[in-house]
């Protein structure tokens, strides 16, 4: 007699249609999971990369909000080359980051002043690392400047004849040149960045700041919102000593970037929200139904086996083993087909760089394991039906 595996293989050859249906169902489901999940991972990787790129661009572009003391007249501010004469206590930062009600983040406190250095009018900026609402960790947009060190614009360094690693005297203090920026051909070349506390001390304004740069979060949630009005209303409550200006170009670029990411992540959400549940529920139902039909077709065979003294395990194993075998083979085929689809169609369907579409060993292994497990669970009910068949059913009743 054939072993259980032998009987399963022979029955598969005898009734290829139901076997083929299970095989195709499992293979198609596995291929879809591999295709979409790999695509999802690629989209996520690309989104993360884009987010990083956006952050870098925004960092390079500067932030899109500027907060200066409310007491400063804007005409004076622009006359002074974008430097506020008035200052506010730096504790205002703590109030702003502690308030969820304020729609801004990445707050960078600064104290700026125009100074003469090597015969040039230079903008000295004391800067601290960007601050965030506690419990909402974010990658810092700005790390500030280490105490005792400076970062120099290229024109300043050239005028002073210094390079990275040199030490210079500035406003009575000896400071280390940690970085000289490459020439940009902009006002940035005439800037000196210092640690905020160092700058406050050198300028005799301990604990004071005159500028906060930040990113607004209003347009993240609602691109159509009238962001500046909202921010002004919020500030009036939390920090009335400040006024706000908004750079619409930077903000809009950020909104566009967010919209692009949202479109890409929409594909991921559709897969996880619709297709995955359909696969996880529909495929077991299909396998269960096909197995149920198989049990019905083999009712007499089950009766004969039971009449011959075969136990429940032997009879059940014929159906569970068949489901296991077909699902294992189907999953292997599905993984191969899914990966082939990813390679050929993935870049077009997901609009990602081919380099982002990488095989995820954990996913492939999960599919190869989960498919047979699901198939066996799906076939369990029909198998129970099979083993509870009365052997007398094989014989004609009077």
């Amino acid at each position: 007699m054939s072993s259980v595996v032998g009987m399963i293989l022979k029955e598969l050859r005898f009734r290829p249609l139901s076997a083929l249906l299970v095989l195709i169902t499992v293979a198609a489901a596995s291929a879809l999971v591999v295709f979409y999940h790999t695509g999802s991972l690629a989209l996520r990787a690309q989104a993360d990369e884009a987010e990083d790129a956006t952050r870098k661009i925004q960092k390079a572009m500067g932030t899109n909000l500027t907060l200066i003391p409310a007491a400063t007249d804007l005409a004076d501010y622009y006359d002074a080359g974008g430097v506020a004469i008035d200052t506010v206590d730096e504790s205002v930062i703590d109030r702003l980051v502690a308030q969820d009600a304020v729609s801004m983040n990445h707050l960078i406190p600064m104290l700026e002043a125009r100074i003469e250095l090597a015969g040039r009018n230079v903008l000295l900026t004391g800067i601290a690392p960007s601050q965030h609402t506690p419990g909402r960790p974010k990658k810092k947009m700005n790390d500030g400047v280490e105490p005792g060190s400076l970062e120099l614009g290229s024109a300043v360094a050239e005028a002073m004849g210094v390079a990275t690693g040199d030490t210079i005297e500035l406003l009575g203090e000896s400071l280390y040149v940690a970085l000289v920026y490459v020439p940009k051909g902009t006002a940035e070349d005439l800037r000196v960045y210092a640690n905020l506390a160092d700058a406050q001390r050198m300028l005799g304004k301990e604990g004071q700041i005159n500028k906060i740069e930040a990113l607004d979060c209003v347009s993240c949630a609602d691109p159509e919102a009238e962001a500046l009005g909202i921010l002004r209303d919020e500030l009036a409550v939390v920090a009335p000593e400040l006024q706000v200006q908004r750079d619409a170009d930077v903000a809009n670029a950020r909104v566009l970037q967010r919209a692009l990411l949202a479109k890409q992540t929409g594909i991921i959400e559709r897969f996880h929200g619709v297709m995955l549940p359909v696969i996880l529920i529909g495929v077991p139902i299909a396998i269960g139904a096909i197995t149920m039909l198989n049990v019905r077709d083999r009712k007499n065979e089950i009766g004969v086996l039971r009449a011959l003294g075969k136990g429940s395990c032997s009879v059940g194993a014929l159906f569970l083993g068949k489901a296991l075998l077909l699902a294992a083979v189907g999953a292997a085929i599905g993984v191969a087909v899914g990966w082939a689809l990813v390679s050929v169609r993935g870049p077009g369907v997901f609009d990602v760089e081919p380099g982002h579409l990488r095989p995820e060993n954990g996913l492939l292994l999960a599919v190869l394991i989960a498919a047979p497990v699901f198939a066996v669970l799906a076939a369990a009910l029909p198998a129970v039906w099979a083993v509870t068949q009365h052997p007398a059913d094989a014989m004609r009743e009077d």
Partner: protein
Amino acid sequence: MTDTTPDAMIQLDRVSHRYDGKQGRVDALKDISLSFAPGELALINGPSGSGKSTLLLAVGAMRRPTSGTVSINGADLYAQNAASRASFRASEIGFVFQTLNLIPYLSAFDNVMLAAPPAAQKQRATRDRARQLLTDLGLADRLHHKPGQLSQGERQRAAIARAMLNEPKVILADEPSGNLDPDNAHAAFAALRGFADAGGTVLVATHSTLHDEQADRVVTLRGGVVAQSKEVGATV
């Protein structure tokens, strides 16, 4: 009717069976007592609905009677649990069904081997016996044919070979010659007669009276009771 023999192979003692069907209760067997000796081939005769198949199922450890006891070789079948009964059925009882006897995707040889216990399936002696039984029943050149490639008579003979593989004490056959031409029917009965002559006990449920001369006894059932038990051969 009471029919009790101390050295009986099969003993039915006041066996009744009642089905609760959609059309109400049906008394398939009513207080039947019968015994069959080793070496006896008995035909269980009667019209449809007379209780023939129910009797065979009860003796085959597949249908627990509503009341009464069924013993084979002294063992009370329904005093055992289901697993023991299945094991007993596998080793002591051979079945030949009217139709759908064979697993359609297994060869004649594999179908016969299906009856062997798992441990015996790889033993050369078992395989040789299966081959010999099929050869003895005229199927030497059909060992590896699937049921669909065999004639009705060949299928029935393969089923008889399967029933004999484990050298059971009892073979139960339900209409083994149904749908067979006279030659094949005769061959099937000859095989069963040979089993009985070798000491086995055979019960054959049949409508037909054509094979009475090959039996030792004909038991006629009507409405679930034994209407007649007539010895027709020389063995009993």
